[in-house]
């Protein structure tokens, strides 16, 4: 397949099919509607399951059911819709069921707006569901990267028996770009799903249960420790980030997704003015690429965290920085997307941006 021009949301849907999705359950919400629309046509045509649920709450629980049954399953939604799914997400993580959740962020809080935003970093990495659970969260910056990550996400979810969230903003969902669907995906050894609740005839002598209830505190703590060990393995193996222009930077920007892409242009503009700026671009938000911060040269004058929010990833930057450098913040929100020149100005006036 040669390069094609495709809308982000449709590319997410096609990449899911290429990733082997068996079932999609979702509920309409802007700006992700092209994901279910595309899948409604193409999944059914290929003998797979597409179902529009009566609510986001219901959709995520359908995902629980089908994931428990051992199938590759996904849902997609946007900010307030993901909020509604949090209960189910906690249960899915607790029951260690694999699935892929696509979150196409829009402006919040509340009903907010429908324009691009990154104000759901907390929602993705801290979670609104109850308990000590983690999603594996990827935040691609382009449609191409979204496709590559989508295709791989089903393997990663199956490998760790953990939900994977692909976190993009409305801009990635709504824009069109030239993309290539044939980039190879890393091969992983995936064990048999011998835990699937698909009837004892498939596993005689053994009853399989998808469950998050551990009424004995001893058992629940054991289960939690097991989950934490898994999250630590994920922290060890699945960190992804990119270092941009890291040769001899005066400043370092930390940004992900669309914001990182905007900052690439800012870095070019600043270079022309003789200001060298590097960038840490986290691709995995959980696990957060703390190690990238150890590669920042001592002489750097400061780190500027840039987000389409009023400072959420900033927390992780402050933790990773551990007081070493000055940390500044630049953010826009509500669907306001800055042009590269605004970040150029923020770097030039870094001192006004410092938060620590």
């Amino acid at each position, binding site marked *: 397949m040669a*390069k*094609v*021009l495709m809308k982000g949301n449709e590319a997410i849907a096609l990449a899911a099919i290429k990733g082997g999705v068996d079932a999609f359950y979702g509920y309409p919400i*802007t*700006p992700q509607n092209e994901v279910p629309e595309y899948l409604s046509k193409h999944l059914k045509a290929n003998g797979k399951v597409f179902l529009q649920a009566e609510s986001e709450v219901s959709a995520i629980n359908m995902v629980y059911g089908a994931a428990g049954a051992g199938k590759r399953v996904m849902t997609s939604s946007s900010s307030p819709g993901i909020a509604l799914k949090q209960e189910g997400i906690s249960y899915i993580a607790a029951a260690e069921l694999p699935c892929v959740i696509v979150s196409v962020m829009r402006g919040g809080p509340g009903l907010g707006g*429908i*324009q691009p935003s990154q104000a759901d970093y907390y929602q993705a990495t801290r979670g609104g569901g109850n308990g000590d659970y983690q999603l594996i969260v990827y935040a691609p910056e382009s449609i191409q990267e979204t496709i590559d990550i989508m295709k791989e996400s089903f393997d990663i979810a199956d490998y760790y028996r953990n939900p994977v969230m692909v976190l993009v903003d*409305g*801009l990635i969902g*709504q*824009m*069109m*770009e*030239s993309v290539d669907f044939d980039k190879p995906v890393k091969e992983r050894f995936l064990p048999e799903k011998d835990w699937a609740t698909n009837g004892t005839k498939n596993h005689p002598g053994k009853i399989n249960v998808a469950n998050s209830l551990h009424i004995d505190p001893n058992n629940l703590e054991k289960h939690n420790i097991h989950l934490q060990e898994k999250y630590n393995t994920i922290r060890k193996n699945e960190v992804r980030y990119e270092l941009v222009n890291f040769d001899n930077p005066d400043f370092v920007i930390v940004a992900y997704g*669309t914001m990182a*892409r*905007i*900052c*690439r*242009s*800012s870095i*070019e503009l600043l270079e022309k003015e003789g200001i060298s700026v590097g960038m840490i671009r986290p691709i995995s938000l959980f696990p957060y690429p703390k190690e990238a911060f150890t590669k920042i040269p001592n002489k750097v004058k400061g780190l500027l965290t840039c987000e389409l929010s009023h400072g959420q990833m900033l927390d992780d930057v402050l933790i990773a920085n551990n007081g070493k450098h000055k940390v500044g913040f630049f953010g826009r929100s509500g669907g306001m*997307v*800055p*042009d*590269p*020149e605004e970040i150029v100005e923020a770097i030039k006036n870094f001192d006004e941006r410092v938060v620590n």
Partner: protein
Amino acid sequence: MKKTSNVKVAGFGGQGVMMFGQVLAYSATKDDLFGLWFPSYGPETRGGTANCAVIVSDKQINSPVFKDADHLVAFNLPSLEKFRSNVVENGLILYNGSLIKDEVKEEGKLCIGVPVNDIANELGNVKVANMVMMGAYLGLTNLFSDETIEAVIKKFLGQKKADLLDINMEAIQKGKDYIKDLGVNYA
């Protein structure tokens, strides 16, 4: 060509603004360049003004948003007024001369009005006004070959509207001719 072209396309809903932008992005993809198209979306697109941003580049595209466009294509007066101040030095403002009667002047920028509605009406279908504009745009920028554009429009129209290919290509030619007759050189 210039390595990266940032294009803003704007007009009323129904004037083929989105299609204009998409044809550029599809053409870039077809020519193995990088194309990016980003629409205004949501309630504002229902019946009101429509606009989209297109980036055509021979290298990986960085920021999907830009402050000032290299080229502004304005299909009506409100769009022109909204975006005319956000065009780079030596940029191009291409506007619909059928709806914008007063001559547009911006210092340091090439401003060209083309009566695309009138030309399209002469061709018998006002809906191809956007392709007259496309012809004028290509006549000025030489971004894509006729072969590329024809293949993209053919795919765009699909089998259902295949019979409209000829009039679309004719519209593009008329737009190009109009620029040629003006004797303007831009690219």
